[in-house]
């Protein structure tokens, strides 16, 4: 079982970190992924989980939300933003892209990411995030409208 978790983690850590990077940026991506994966392990065995990958994606999305809300994290992010050296590994266009995406809600951002990076249909996105198909379609529609406005003026 332990071996299985290792294998699964190894298999998915790359894409989870990519997802987390889009949500919170490269500095905290690994932090969010570790926290998300550990949370699922503390919650109990993964043996009863059908789709561990989806479970972990969902956990990363949720962890990123609480991460945004956390005050200490926010302060740390602001400190980092003022520290040029710490920003060295952040690409400027990528940070700009994240700033645009930051105008969306957390759920919308996750929906956009899964739809456009992983090319998932709404039903699959719904499964990944553990919400209804209708919610995904609604959020996707809203997110696209919002991005249409934003991108038109870019």
């Amino acid at each position, binding site marked *: *079982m*332990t*071996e299985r*978790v*290792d294998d699964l*983690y*190894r*298999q998915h*850590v*790359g*894409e989870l*970190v*990519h*997802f*987390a*990077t*889009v949500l919170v940026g*490269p500095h905290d*991506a*690994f*932090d969010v992924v*570790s926290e998300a*994966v*550990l949370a699922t*392990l*503390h919650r*109990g*065995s*993964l*043996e009863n989980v059908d789709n561990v990958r989806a479970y972990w994606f969902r956990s990363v999305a949720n962890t990123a939300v609480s991460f945004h809300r956390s005050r200490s994290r926010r302060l740390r992010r602001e400190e980092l933003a003022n520290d040029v050296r710490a920003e060295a*590994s*952040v*690409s400027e*266009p*990528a*940070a*700009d*892209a*994240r700033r*645009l*995406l930051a105008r969306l809600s957390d759920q919308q951002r996750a929906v*956009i*990411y899964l*739809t*456009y*990076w992983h090319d998932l*249909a*709404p039903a699959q996105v719904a499964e990944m995030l553990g919400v209804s198909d209708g919610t995904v*379609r609604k959020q*996707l*529609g809203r997110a*696209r409208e919002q*991005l*249409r406005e934003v*991108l038109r003026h870019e």
Partner: protein
Amino acid sequence: MNDRSGSVQTDDWLDRAIRELVDCAGSDAPTDPATLWFASPPRRPRAGWLAAAAAFLVVVALASVVALRRGGEIDPAAQTTPAVQSTTPPTTAHPPRPTTPTTVKSATPRTSVPPGPVVQDYGAITCGDGIGRITIPEIDLNFYYVACVGTAELNRSVVGHYPRSVVPGQLGNAALAGHRTSRAAPFGDLDALKPGDVIQIETILGGAYTYVVTGSEVVNPSDYHVVTDSDPTKATLTLITYTPKYTSKQRLVVHAALDTSRSGSPVGVGQPYYGEANPGFGPSSDVLLEN
């Protein structure tokens, strides 16, 4: 409003723009295998962590004993499966950590390689696993490379290694591929390389190799022989990307040869080999990068 999603039109400028936006937003995702796999950022201690920490120490102790018994030789298998030896219950399972990461990174470039038929054994790996780093100071290139060159691997904004070529540092031809214009464009400036330019390779096994560019050519996607053509008595390196820029019509190929004065003698068996744990590794595609 059409197709699979009911609201996504693939030919819409908006979809293209959003796709680019998402692509860009994730383009600086850490791909450092050490960061992803081994290192963990400092965090607040928690109650549940004591058990995990204790288990981790046991693993480290066991691994050290194993390493010592093998005369200090680095055994990648010991690193990649530390938790197998652990008695940690699943609920406290811990993202695997290195047992000897710094030793691996700082291992002296193969000067103390014992005589005999030495091979580079990467232990059990799968496509997408980071296995080294390529640096080309001349064009400011510094990327990790992973096993395999499928779309799934290269779209992670890294360089990929052809599993049907040898690994860098081995006798024979090692081949690496990368995107030219998208996904962080690791091989964007490959056309600027001239004979004599230096390509540095570090592997996760601790090897450090310096290759020197010998020439370049443009070939068709079907010219797979540039990967597999290999003189088993020489260590060469081939870098492959798309050309012309923004198209996938042809492939730009840069050839380089190992500079033995700076790297020491190449090791290996002169044929594709990731190690005993990976027989018949990799896809069987015969094209140089998928279109």
